[in-house]
């Protein structure tokens, strides 16, 4: 049974650390470039056009798909698969793993996704209309591209990993959920190296844009880079983004045995459910989730140096999260609060993992990046410690708490500590 004691009291073979980070975001294709963009206030949101919806905005990644894939593999697979393959390869390199000598049967792949298969299904339905809806023209690639494990499976094929692979469907809490799953599988001894995080190909499905628009939750702005504006009084919705972030997770003793550089330790985590609404978040349940993660970490709220918010820029979602944060952190004078979606939009299944990665560098550079595009703070989003528009230097960062919530009332929190 997995212990729920605070991480520091666990034996080293039950303590889980991050030893590699591979990512692509709309404003950076590796951890360093991404961090530079976040500190420079550089948004990755740009104009975008997609069938049926027309002109809109999105966070678009420009990583080189052919760095780790052949053209045939790109053609056969999915965008989510390519994102995952890029991030996994980058993470392995960044983590300094001696990959040729890693036992690939002992590597597990745990990839969070908000949704998968919509892109390919929409493409096939669209193409089929040109053939009079004759299903004999439906691609034989449709099933392998749309099975829910596809992004993780493509990583397995690309890297020759024969350990377990699957995706974790957890709406927009999926990035955190992937990390938690990877850590738990390491604690259970199901693998010795976990490639864990989340991916998003969501900008390639018109349905997600159309649905947010119908919900009144799709961001619009004349200046794309100012469209994603959580906490601002004029926020008007979500900017959909693609991206990915995969971590190399290992047990602390394994990481130390190979002299790996350690970027942080998963000292606490929690997931729970609102059980109250399909879309409206529930601050009481969010508080319970944060409290549970703090308890597991053996930490008080005022020991958290940075809270990375989930806020997406919707009217009610931001208010609900601020209510929750106010009740937990209002007395925490040294806790800083920021939001990464203001730079990159909402990277869906990748959001939690990417937003966490954006903050992990704070252990080394001692800076809390801001939430940008706040021209006039919404009074209902006023929370102490919110870092607005300009990054803030801190004396030291020991703990980062990362919120990630999703539709159907799924909540996730991870707390990473300095090692």
């Amino acid at each position: 049974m997995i212990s729920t004691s605070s991480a520091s009291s666990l034996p080293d073979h039950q303590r889980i650390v991050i030893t590699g980070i591979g990512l692509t975001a709309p404003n950076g294709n590796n951890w360093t470039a991404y961090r530079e963009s976040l500190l420079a206030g550089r948004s990755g949101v740009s104009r975008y056009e997609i069938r049926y919806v027309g002109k809109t905005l999105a966070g678009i990644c420009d990583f080189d798909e052919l760095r780790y894939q052949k053209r045939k593999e790109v053609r056969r697979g999915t965008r989510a698969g390519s994102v995952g393959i890029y991030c996994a390869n980058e993470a392995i390199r960044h983590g300094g793993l001696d990959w040729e000598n890693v036992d690939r049967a002992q590597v597990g792949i745990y990839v969070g996704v908000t949704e998968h298969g919509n892109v390919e299904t929409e493409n096939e339905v669209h193409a089929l209309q040109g053939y009079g809806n004759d299903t004999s023209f439906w691609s034989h690639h449709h099933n392998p591209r749309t099975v829910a494990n596809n992004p993780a499976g493509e990583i397995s094929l690309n890297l020759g990993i024969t350990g377990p692979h699957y995706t974790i469907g957890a709406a927009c809490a999926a990035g955190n959920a992937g990390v938690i799953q990877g850590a738990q599988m390491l604690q259970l001894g199901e693998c010795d190296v976990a490639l864990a995080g989340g991916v998003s190909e969501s900008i390639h499905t018109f349905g997600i844009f159309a649905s947010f628009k119908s919900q009144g939750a799709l961001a619009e702005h004349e200046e794309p880079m100012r469209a994603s504006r959580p906490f601002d009084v004029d926020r008007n919705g979500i900017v959909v983004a693609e991206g990915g972030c995969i971590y190399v997770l290992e047990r602390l003793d394994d990481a130390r045995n190979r002299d790996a550089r350690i970027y942080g330790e998963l000292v606490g985590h929690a997931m729970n459910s609102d059980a109250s609404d399909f879309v409206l978040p529930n601050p009481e349940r969010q508080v319970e989730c944060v409290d549970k993660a703090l308890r597991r970490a053996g930490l008080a709220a005022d020991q958290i140096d940075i809270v990375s918010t989930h806020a997406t820029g919707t009217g009610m979602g931001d208010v609900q999260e601020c209510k929750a944060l106010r009740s937990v952190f209002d007395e925490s004078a040294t806790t800083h609060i920021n939001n990464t979606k203001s730079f990159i939009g909402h990277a869906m299944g990748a959001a939690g993992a990417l937003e966490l990665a954006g903050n992990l560098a704070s252990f080394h550079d001692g800076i809390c990046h801001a939430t940008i595009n706040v021209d006039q703070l919404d009074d209902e989003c006023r929370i102490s410690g919110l870092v607005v528009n300009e990054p803030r230097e801190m004396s030291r960062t020991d703990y980062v708490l990362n919120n990630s919530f999703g539709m159907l009332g799924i909540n996730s929190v991870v707390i990473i500590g300095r090692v």
Partner: protein
Amino acid sequence: MTPEQIRGEVADILADIAPDEDLSDLKDDVAFRDQVELDSMDFLDIVMELRKRHRIQIPEEDYGELASMQSTVTYLVPYLKDVEKV
């Protein structure tokens, strides 16, 4: 379409399916799979692309006729002889 035009069409399809391969020395009388890295899904891509381009419904029992360039062209001539090359 002439046999030479059909050959060109099949070569185009193969180039799409196997974009990393050098197909310049493809031998007509040797099986595709012995010259190019193709699996069953790729082979189905050939069948699907012929269906999309020319509305040819190749029955599964005839798939073996598409083993090499020579056999493929021979098989397709009756289907495509009255089709104009676009």
